[in-house]
């Protein structure tokens, strides 16, 4: 009988709550900071610590049967996995934001403008659905600083409290995705082995 593997963030917003959730489901383990594979005590279960963006692919490939990841990451990666349930933490929104004094007042005004984002695939889909054509500038981090450096006219970024936006003189134009942490399962596994049902 092969061991069950569950993938969670190795570091980031969701890690603490993911660990609490798993423990609330009866898993017994302690993250020791050195190993990325944490075996559970007296259980045939391993907890895998992965980079956020790798979780969907590991679960899709069936390397881990389960994973906990934000819907924002799932949407951007667009991998085929089964979403078992929403977990009620890691709540955030993907928004398009512009400088306070920007002439861009509506989504339509984004036509022809530069939008910096770490979610180029999802943003492209959104713009295509709206029939808007803009220049997407892919940036992997610190997206909020791009308007003041004249690298972008708008940003598409993850927002929780909105304080980071405010700190950079940006205001929200529109929310394009509501996201929270979800428990995902690989399509390779049938529901007989479903641990969380």
């Amino acid at each position: 009988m092969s061991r069950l593997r569950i993938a969670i963030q190795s570091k980031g917003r969701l890690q603490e709550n993911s660990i609490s959730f798993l423990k609330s489901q009866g898993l017994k383990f302690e993250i020791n900071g050195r190993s990325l594979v944490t075996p559970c005590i007296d259980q045939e279960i391993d907890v895998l610590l992965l980079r956020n963006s790798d979780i969907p692919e590991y679960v899709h490939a069936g390397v881990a049967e389960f994973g906990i990841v934000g819907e924002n990451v799932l949407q951007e990666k667009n991998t085929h996995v089964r979403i078992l349930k929403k977990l009620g933490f890691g709540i955030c929104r993907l928004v398009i934001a512009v400088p306070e004094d920007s002439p861009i007042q509506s989504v339509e005004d984004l036509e022809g403008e530069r939008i910096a984002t770490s979610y180029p695939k999802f943003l492209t889909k959104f713009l295509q659905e709206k029939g808007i054509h803009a220049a997407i500038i892919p940036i992997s981090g610190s997206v909020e600083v791009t308007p003041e450096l004249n690298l972008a006219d708008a940003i598409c970024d993850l927002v929780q409290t909105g304080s980071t936006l405010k700190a950079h003189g940006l205001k929200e134009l529109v929310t394009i995705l509501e996201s929270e942490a979800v428990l995902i399962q690989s399509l390779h596994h049938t529901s007989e082995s479903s641990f969380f049902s």
Partner: protein
Amino acid sequence: MSTLVTPEILRGTRDFLPEEMVKRNYVMNTIRAVFKSFGYGTIETPVIEYLSTLLGSYGEEGNKLLYRFEDNGGRQVALRYDQTVPFARLVAANHRELPMPFKRYEINRVWRADRPAKGRYREFYQCDVDIIGTESLVAEGEIAKVVYSVFTTLGFSNFLIKINSRRLINAILQSLGVPEGDQISIIRILDKIEKIGRSEIQKELAPFLDAKKSAELLDLILMKGSNQEKIQAVAKYGISEVAEFLDICADYEIPEKHLEFDLSLARGLDYYTGIICEVILPDIDIGSVCGGGRYDDLCGRFCKEKFSGMGVAFGFDRMVLALEELGLLKDIVTHTEVLVTYFSPETRQKSIFLVNLLQKEGIAAEIYFEPAKLQKQLKYADKKKIPFVIFCGPEEIQKHEVKIKMLKTGKEKTIPEHQLINYLQGFSGE
């Protein structure tokens, strides 16, 4: 004093302007890509051949339509009439060097001195794909999958691949007492059924079959029903290749809704011996857009070795017409992505610099050749449907900026020059 030559072309031939060529090339390249993905290479044969190679291959009618002449050396030559006979000649001459089974595609022009009419030209493209050197029905299956892939890749959703078997038709005729020598004549008559209707066909069959037998024949071949029902109805003739072929098509994941076993399908060419097929587009009144079948002896006229094969020809021009009619070609545009304007002789160097920069990054860019009024340059971009126009006048040069105009929306955007490539490469939408 010189008189001008009238710039006319012969009836039945065509000139193609760039906009039309973009569409034709798109269709041709799409078809080519499908062929390549199945491992087909291509060959090419000369446009002019010895008359003796071609004469006699196409029947009485065909012979009259050959473009033939005597060349400067007194040789009797002719323009190729199709791709199959030159293909047969090439195989006869080269078969030891060719991998066997041999599969090839060919997309080239052929010439026939036909009477021009709608959809009928004197110079036109043939688009053939053939597998020779094997009698296996898997070859038929692959050809069917190639046909299916070509039509779906081009965007057709409603198309029907009709299939039948010459072996089966012959078995049916034999059971009705038709001597082997008459079978092909009856097949030629049956091929006209769509055009002239049942009662006319019955009249033409009279010399070969009595009224009762021809009624029996027509009832059978015109029967309606599912593919499986038809297979049951003809099981007693002992020809299983249609059923086997459909099984192979299922293995190739060709949806059954695109395959119709049509007992009335005959196809015009005499030399088919097994599975025959024809593709029609139910939504468009254009006739068949693809057809072909199994033949037993490709090179009979040229060598002793027998090569059995299976192939189809795509009606390229009809397919382009159909795609136009269905609106599937309206988004295919010209190749230039960016026009760099030429503001003045002083800024010429900058304009050429931008063209160099864009092309280095794989963006198709061109410069307007003269420092004409902006309106004129925009008109040029509009005519060529170039999506982006870049201004770089003295003001922009001074600030190290470029101004981009998007012709589709009319929107203008000024950005730092060093962001130009990222801007264009990140542009979402068409």
